[in-house]
């Protein structure tokens, strides 16, 4: 027997049993939505996919017959109702059905026959909107920002944050270490210059983490310009510039030069340019045990390691 998806209207709004000869407008409207959605679903598959909309001769029982050859179609539907589907289109189609079922006050029963077992999906179709896998678990996104503004709060019991009111825009909460927060607390109500990384998966879940603190506006602007010069350029010339920068700084001032650490801090975040991190680590490897850079060096090596999840090659 082929897999099938069936949607049955079990009760009218007033509690009466639905009947073909005496169907409410709402029930008829639902049947229309189901048939249209099934048609849309079938259309999304190839002509010879053997998906059929079964006419049971009974409009209150809508059945979508899925191809017999394999279970991929029913798996596909299960993915949609479990928000694991990657197809925007499928999710959209089934959301039309779900919306109807969850909103219009009639009672329904939704069953999926999957490998000769009946899976009752009624609750799934009555609850939250289906979303795609990408929406359920969107990829991490990041942006490095340079912030100048008045610091008006520093500290926190469990999470340590500083709060800055930039000249323009809303106040920002930026997480940092306790040691950093202690230093900031001496600067309350003065203007500070910092870089931070904004990270989010969904736009409403933005977090910010402190990357570096600059002593004045001039230094702030210098590192902002340097960051953009190295990061925004697509040309490999940026590696050359960075390498020469690191080597000339090391030659003049050694690994303890604050410039070296400041460059490293700007790239100490998950999605940072791995070519830049490679260049920094390659040049600094012979000096990696020096106290001034040892911990930042390890942090950058960890960023590389965490980002490398390939195993198929």
């Amino acid at each position, binding site marked *: 027997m082929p897999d099938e998806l069936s949607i049955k209207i079990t009760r009218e709004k007033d509690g009466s049993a639905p009947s073909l000869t005496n169907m409410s407008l709402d029930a008829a409207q639902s049947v229309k939505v189901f048939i249209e959605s099934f048609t849309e679903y079938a259309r999304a598959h190839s002509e010879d996919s053997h998906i059929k909309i079964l006419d049971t001769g009974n409009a209150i029982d809508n059945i979508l017959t899925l191809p017999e050859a394999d279970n991929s179609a029913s798996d596909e539907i299960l993915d949609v109702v479990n928000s694991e589907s990657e197809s925007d289109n499928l999710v959209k189609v089934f959301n039309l059905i779900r919306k109807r079922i969850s909103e219009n006050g009639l009672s329904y029963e939704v069953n999926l026959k999957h490998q000769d077992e009946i899976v009752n999906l009624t609750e799934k179709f009555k609850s939250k909107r289906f979303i795609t896998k990408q929406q359920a678990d969107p990829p991490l996104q990041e942006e490095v920002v340079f912030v100048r503004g008045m610091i008006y709060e520093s500290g926190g019991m469990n999470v340590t944050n500083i709060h800055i009111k930039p000249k323009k825009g809303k106040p920002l909460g930026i997480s940092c270490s306790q040691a950093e927060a202690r230093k900031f607390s001496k600067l309350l109500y003065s203007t500070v210059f910092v870089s931070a990384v904004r990270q989010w998966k969904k736009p409403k879940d933005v977090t910010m983490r402190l990357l570096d603190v600059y002593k004045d506006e001039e230094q702030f602007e210098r590192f902002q310009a340097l960051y953009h010069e190295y990061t925004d350029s697509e040309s*490999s010339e940026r590696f050359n510039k960075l*390498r020469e920068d690191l080597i000339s700084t090391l030659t003049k001032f050694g690994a303890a030069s604050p410039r070296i650490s400041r460059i490293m801090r700007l790239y100490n975040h998950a999605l940072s340019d791995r*070519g*830049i991190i490679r*260049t920094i680590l*390659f*040049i600094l490897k*012979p*000096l990696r045990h020096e106290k001034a850079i040892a911990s930042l060096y390890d942090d950058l090596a960890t960023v590389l390691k965490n980002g490398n999840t390939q195993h198929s090659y």
Partner: protein
Amino acid sequence: MKVEESYIIKNLKRFNDESLPNSFVALAAKVNELKQFGHAAILIRLKGRNFLYHYPSFTLPVVEDDFDEHGWYFYKIFSQIRVDDVNEVEGFLDLCRWICGKSNIMYAFFADKSNYNSKGEYISKNGLPELGTCVSFCVNTLSGFMPEVDSYLELDDWNSSSLGNMASYDLLLQEYARGKDIDMNIYNAFKKRVTPLEYVTSAFLEEYPIKREWISEIAPIVQGAV
């Protein structure tokens, strides 16, 4: 260190048999009609363009742009550089070019864990000039890209046992040493050869530094796969 035979067969690639990712770094070696592994190199593909980074042995190291040949090179993608990460592969290639401009290597079966400083200058541990083979040159480069371990291979595991008929190349150095200040006693103490087969095989292992016995376990499978 367990590596499945099927994994090796699937992932040892012949240049340029299959459509592969657009950007990657790989350990490569030329294989002759007798299926012997010869010249070793690092193959870099960036946005579909091929580059061969290697030490030709009779001339200094180079990056060959738009490298192309007809099925003699076999390679395995290097697991530590993220496939299709254009920035990372481009950064790798850029550093390889830089090393080529710095290296003054001379051909010899030698590795005493000497390395380069942050300026790319060769710092000898035992007072000898920069010496090495096409393999040891690539191994040294890979070591530079291993941020958390000193060396890509556990070089102490190797000795001069696999020199075989290559030993005659050694005479070149002896000839050269006569006129220069090369202490052959030190040279002989660190004389060793990592074979090109061992080099390509190492790419199937992912725990560093890589021990010779791990390589020996799976090298016959790699040899059989060409």
